[in-house]
């Protein structure tokens, strides 16, 4: 097995504040990695470094063969291989679900207009929302919007998907429908990095859990490690929640 995402000794600062203090981990092809940790521990920043929404100060970072830490990186090639879904969905409010999904494939990959609808339908079927193809985002519930955001990402056929607390803005019942979609995706062999507070999901779906603390990978292991934490910080995190 070869790693698709390789972070080695990543350092990242905002101004004089060092947020990532030597983060290293790898994600294998088809692997699902859950990243957990307190708010402010650097989870989002680590994820955002992977697709170069943030630039790092030092360390090496390779994603799907792209040297992300390199000046000569082909940014758009990287973005075609890496999908990202945010806590706040970030759908385009002025476009229908179909247009949301097909905009990038049409513009970036040159998918012809007549094939676009079929592509949208196919992506929507993967998130169970085919009937909403002509709706506008504001006509959908939060959970549905997030599933459309996932479908939009999938339509670009990424090799890796990054999820940043995608259920944190949702009620428990809507959280379930989004998590089910992600689980299906994981079972289908997608390589995923999932920042989440859903411990049950991390245990059940993730091949590996990474616990971040104060800008470092503090503890890592299979989902079971949550039942048997080695460090006091992880034990504390699990028993006190966020």
């Amino acid at each position, binding site marked *: 097995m070869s790693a698709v995402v390789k972070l080695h000794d990543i350092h990242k600062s905002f101004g004089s504040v060092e947020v990532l203090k030597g983060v290293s981990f790898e994600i294998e092809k088809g692997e699902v990695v859950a990243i957990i940790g307190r708010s402010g521990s650097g989870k989002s920043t680590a994820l955002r470094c992977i697709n170069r929404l943030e630039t790092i100060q030092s360390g090496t970072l390779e994603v799907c063969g792209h040297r992300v830490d390199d000046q000569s990186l082909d940014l758009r090639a990287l973005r075609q291989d890496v999908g990202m879904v945010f806590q*706040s969905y*970030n759908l*385009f409010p002025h476009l229908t679900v179909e247009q949301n999904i097909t*905009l990038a494939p049409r513009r*970036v990959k040159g998918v012809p207009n007549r094939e676009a609808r079929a592509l949208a339908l196919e992506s929507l079927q993967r998130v169970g929302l085919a009937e909403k193809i002509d709706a*506008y985002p504001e006509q959908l519930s939060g959970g549905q919007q997030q599933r459309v955001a996932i479908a939009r990402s999938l339509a*670009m056929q990424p090799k890796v998907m990054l999820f940043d607390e995608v259920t944190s803005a949702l009620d428990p019942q809507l959280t379930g429908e989004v998590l089910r979609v992600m689980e299906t995706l994981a079972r289908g062999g997608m390589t995923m990095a999932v920042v989440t507070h859903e411990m049950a999901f991390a245990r059940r779906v993730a091949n590996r859990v990474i616990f971040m603390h104060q800008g470092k990978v503090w503890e890592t292991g299979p989902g079971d490690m949550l039942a048997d934490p080695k460090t006091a910080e992880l034990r504390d995190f699990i028993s006190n929640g966020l």
Partner: protein
Amino acid sequence: MMGGAFTFNHFVYLLQGMMWTVVLSALAFVLGGVAGFGVMLMRTARTRLLRQISFVFVQLVQGTPLLILLFVVYFGLGVVGIELPPLLAAGVSLMVYSSAFLGEIWRGCVESVPRTQWEASECLALTRWQTLVDVILPQAARIATPPTVGFLVQVMKSTSLASVVGFVELTRAAQVVNNSLFTPFLVFGIAGVLYFALCYPLSRWSRSLERKLNVGRRQAA
């Protein structure tokens, strides 16, 4: 000299002036719109130098009365040997003037679209330009319509200043008629009504456009 009564010919003369007011406004708006779009692009550019240059331009123009701008373009360029006809001089001045204001209005509208829309587009491998055209501008346009049309109304009224460089638009035409008839209430009253006839539909149009844009978004597809 008080030279008789207000005739139909006087009215036609005023209408001709009104037509030139429309031509000048259209010129100001089209040219100013194109240049203003450029100013907006520069004000929101990633390159710092472009942002700074456009910032200075906007500050300079916004801090200068339109009348001074007109004098500079008409008389100033005349001194260095560039003789512009009044229409062109007025058109250029209004273009510069409008570009600064429209550029600034539109910059505000573009920046009011959440940054996360840029980020989501970036993650989908869209270029900056594609993002601007397909994602940001359609959302910014919704917000931009009322202030843009509001400014258009202002520009239309400001074209009256072009009379100082000898351009015969509505205000100048009214002056000419009044100079021969000396019935200021009547003549300038009619000019006022004609200005209103130009501006009011614009304001109405702006309001209906605003409403339509809002409804369009809510309508079930």
